[in-house]
């Protein structure tokens, strides 16, 4: 039973991550590989303020989420002012750089990881409570992304992606929209990270490497970029698949790269064979 709970929680987290990443890359057209690092930053922030400063956990989660949101603006604002391409480059630096930084900070447990993070829930109903919370948040996030990308604001995003120059010439501030999209997406990733920290009670730099970037990207591309349900389907599929692989008992030295190859290989396959992903009806031009 505990195993099923943990898989459900993982699915919930992955839906949150994939949906919010889809907002950024699929709807916003912004390429960043730094999504896992916003998960990490909020997780660490929330863990540390609750452990070191005794901040109540729900408040710590809010602080962690805000921390990621603010840092995402600090990353995206300067790079987007130049051009969209620079965001990707800055995000690679952000992703690799922050993992490096976390590895060197003693207060964050350095390379061996941060243990003893207080749990959000305790007692016999702990796991089901987490399942409900995280799945509820996941549902909320899917709804939020859907709302943001449909209706007035959604049409503006669509127009911006169609023809940005024309869009701005009509008086629309494309940079503001992109920064907002990036901030919301990253903030949501942060929320997932903060919740996760107080569920698993352990964080380590390995959990947010570039392999996670690849995994989330795979979920979005396989499911279908720029669709509401694509990332959900992608997250379900790609959470179940590695679970199946773990039954084949391979040593980690083979397991980790093999998983990475499967994720990146799937992205490449879909990129060429079915670029629109599983959930899109037709290729959008």
């Amino acid at each position, binding site marked *: 039973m505990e195993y099923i709970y943990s898989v459900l929680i993982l699915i919930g987290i992955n839906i949150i991550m994939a949906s919010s990443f889809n907002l950024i890359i699929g709807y916003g057209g912004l390429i960043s590989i730094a999504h896992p690092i916003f998960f990490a930053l909020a997780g660490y922030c929330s863990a540390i303020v609750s452990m070191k400063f005794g901040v109540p956990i729900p408040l710590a989660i809010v602080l962690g989420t805000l921390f990621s949101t603010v840092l995402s603006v600090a990353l995206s604002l300067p790079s987007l002012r130049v051009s969209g391409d620079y965001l990707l480059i800055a995000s690679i630096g952000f992703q690799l750089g922050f993992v490096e930084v976390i590895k060197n900070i003693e207060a964050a447990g350095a390379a061996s990881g941060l243990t003893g993070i207080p749990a959000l829930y305790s007692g016999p109903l702990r796991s089901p409570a987490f399942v409900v919370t995280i799945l509820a948040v996941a549902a909320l996030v899917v709804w939020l992304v859907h709302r943001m990308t449909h209706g*007035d604001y959604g*049409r*503006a995003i*669509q*127009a911006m992606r*169609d*023809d940005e*120059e*024309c*869009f*701005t*010439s*009509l*008086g*629309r*501030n*494309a*940079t503001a929209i992109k920064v907002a999209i990036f901030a919301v997406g990253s903030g949501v990733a942060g929320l997932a990270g903060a919740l996760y920290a107080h569920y698993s009670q352990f964080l380590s730099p390995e959990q947010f490497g570039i392999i996670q970037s690849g995994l989330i990207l795979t979920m979005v591309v396989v499911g279908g970029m720029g669709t509401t349900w694509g990332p959900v389907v992608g997250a379900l599929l790609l959470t179940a698949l590695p679970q199946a692989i773990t039954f084949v008992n391979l040593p980690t030295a083979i397991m980790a790269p093999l998983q990475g190859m499967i994720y990146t290989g799937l992205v490449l396959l879909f990129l060429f064979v079915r670029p629109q992903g599983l959930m899109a009806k037709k290729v*959008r*031009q």
Partner: protein
Amino acid sequence: MTAAIRLVSVQKHFGGISVAEDISLEIHAGEILGLIGPNGAGKTTLFNLISGIHAPDGGEIYLGDQPLSRLPIYKRARLGIARTWQHVRLFPTLSVLDNLLMGPRDYPGAGTDERAAAILARVGMSEARDKMPGELPFGQQKLVALARTLMNDGKVLLLDEPMAGVEGQVYETIKQVVRDEAKAGRAVCVVEHNVSFIRDLCTRAVFMFNGRIEQQGTVEELLASEKLAELYFGGKKGETRS
């Protein structure tokens, strides 16, 4: 009377070639200025400089008394610079109505639905409000693009070859709209190769060649000019390019 928009010694290079060389120009409220010149003269570039797509290498552009060169594209639009594009550029994934709704200075903005409906009616396109741009013939796409620009309610209206590829009823509609917009006090600048359109509408015209203003004056003066005929039509006067 101060000009609605004023260019002072504006310069622009692309690599080695100069596409705007010491351009000084004023357009007044209520006036329709014709901007003519052969392909590659730098007419579209001038619009791009005014609307902020390109930053000038030198000189300044004023909207009223406000210098523009440090402002981003969208801020210029919000100050009232509205333009169309030589290549129409409607948003292909949005309906005609939604295309118009992107146009006002504040978005989504109150009462814009009604304004959009009124403007669509003005250009005779009320029927097409829920169609996608791709479903419309070229001329009607141009009308929609013009309508979208009108949503800005701007002080300056820059029209890049509004008549190219257009004929019949659409032609008449555009002509009427341009006239009305000037009457409503906007400073209008039209790039056109169609001489009769320029002659019918413009009070004043500017002739550009190789990034320079070669001559300006009344339309009659320009059309009578030997130099223009030579540079523009290669000597064959009276012909126009479609």
